[in-house]
């Protein structure tokens, strides 16, 4: 790990800044490991971001100094089964994404579906995960004009991330497909409520188009 910056976010929160998304995942995993082992003082929320991990509700003021001195093992990618999400690759922005990638439109699903994704962090809406895995040169810009209504289940790309909208909402991401049963993404009555929590491995499986 190449260096940790700890920033104050008010009197009760620390924002740990890291050099890469991969280091964020490793640091986040280490925080959870130490919390489970009872080695972390009380922290109300641990929220990974793109380059940061937020620790909110921190009463112990000495924690910042200790975080800087941690030795964090590299991310254990795990060999367990990934969550498989069936999708139909028929999104309205497929052609635009193909052009950005410099490939034919029918290659986009092939490239996307053979990628190993991980949930880097969540946000935007409950159950929405920011999935990393696509190589950097396949980043795509957001749409110039966001859509006022993106349907639940839409499979979308923006920047280096892939995501699936858990509920209907406005959105500016490029839509390349849809998950036929998006209600599986988020159910507050279920444990865990989110199908895609931080660190979850994900694969997209092309589904047959019906009807």
């Amino acid at each position, binding site marked *: 790990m190449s260096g940790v910056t700890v920033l104050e976010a008010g009197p009760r929160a620390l924002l740990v800044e890291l050099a890469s998304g991969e280091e964020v995942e490793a640091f986040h995993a280490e925080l959870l490991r130490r919390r489970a082992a009872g080695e972390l003082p009380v922290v*109300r929320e641990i929220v990974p971001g*793109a380059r940061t991990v937020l620790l*909110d509700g921190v009463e112990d003021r000495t924690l910042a100094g200790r975080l800087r001195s941690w030795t964090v093992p590299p991310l254990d990618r795990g060999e367990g089964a990934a969550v498989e999400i069936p999708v139909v690759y028929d999104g309205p922005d497929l052609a635009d994404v193909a052009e950005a990638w410099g490939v034919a439109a029918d290659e986009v699903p092939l490239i996307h579906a053979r990628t190993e994704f991980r949930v880097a962090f969540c946000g935007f*809406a409950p159950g929405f995960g920011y999935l990393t895995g696509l190589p950097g040169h396949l980043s795509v810009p957001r749409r110039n004009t966001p859509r006022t209504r993106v349907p639940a289940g839409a499979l979308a790309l923006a920047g280096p991330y892939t995501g699936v909208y858990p*509920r209907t909402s406005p959105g500016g991401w490029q839509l390349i497909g849809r998950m036929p049963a998006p209600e599986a993404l988020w159910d507050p009555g279920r444990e865990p409520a989110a199908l895609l929590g931080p660190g979850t491995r994900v694969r997209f499986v092309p589904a047959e188009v019906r009807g």
Partner: protein
Amino acid sequence: MSAVIEVVRAGALTTVQDEGRTGWAHLGVPRAGALDGPARRLANRLVGNEPDAAVLETTLTGCAVRVTGTRPVWAVVGGASCRVTVDGRPAAWGAPVRVPAGAVLEACPAVHGVRGYLAFAGGLVPEPVLGSRSADLLSGLGPPVLREGDVLPLGRPGDVPGAGPVPWPGAPAELVLPLHRGPRDSWFTDEALHTLTTAAYRVSERSNRIGLRTEGPALRRARGGELPSEGMVLGAVQVPPDGLPVVFLNDHPTTGGYPVVGVVAESALAGAAQAVPGTPVRFVRA
């Protein structure tokens, strides 16, 4: 038959609120909860509830509810000050009121302040979601915004303490917000940081449960570029591209992409919940 309340006049924005949800921010779930926590706790205490019992939070225009069942129910209307009536007859504000079965309790439009709180003995007990009964408007968790005809169940009342007059904080004539260091203060020019703590801002009428928006001089950034999404705390002062500070309140998104210049002390946020549009705002160093 246990008591319920029926909404007779819903008001502009009336929601069920308790302390909110904590421990779910990593899944994108906001905290929610009553914006004026001290007012909610005081209202609960006056009707003999636990401090975290669920109450109604009204916005500017109050609301009216009918209490049904076979017994009278003790209630308190507090927070923003307003006229209170029971079946049209004047009743006390900020103190326990006995509402007979079948009677309508009305919190009239606010005279001072923005958010009113209606606490009922026993508390409101809609089904909790992720450990809280709060309405979360951003992500649609918890009971939806109240509409006419809605019915909400009440829990079993405890002992109503003999409550004398209690001091309710008033709505601020000027909102003073103590500012702690934010994680991205270095993204702003020294001049902007000076402006933030010396200039006169006002509460914008675009404020809501997500954020207290302000009007005043725009803050200039020292560096351009986009901030990768990062976790946001309650009280964070986020500065969007228009340069006008937004103080994040309980329904704020859990992550955000605009730099946070400072963080307002949580104890000052009850005042922010009660400041009407146009109220002068002063950010001061904590």
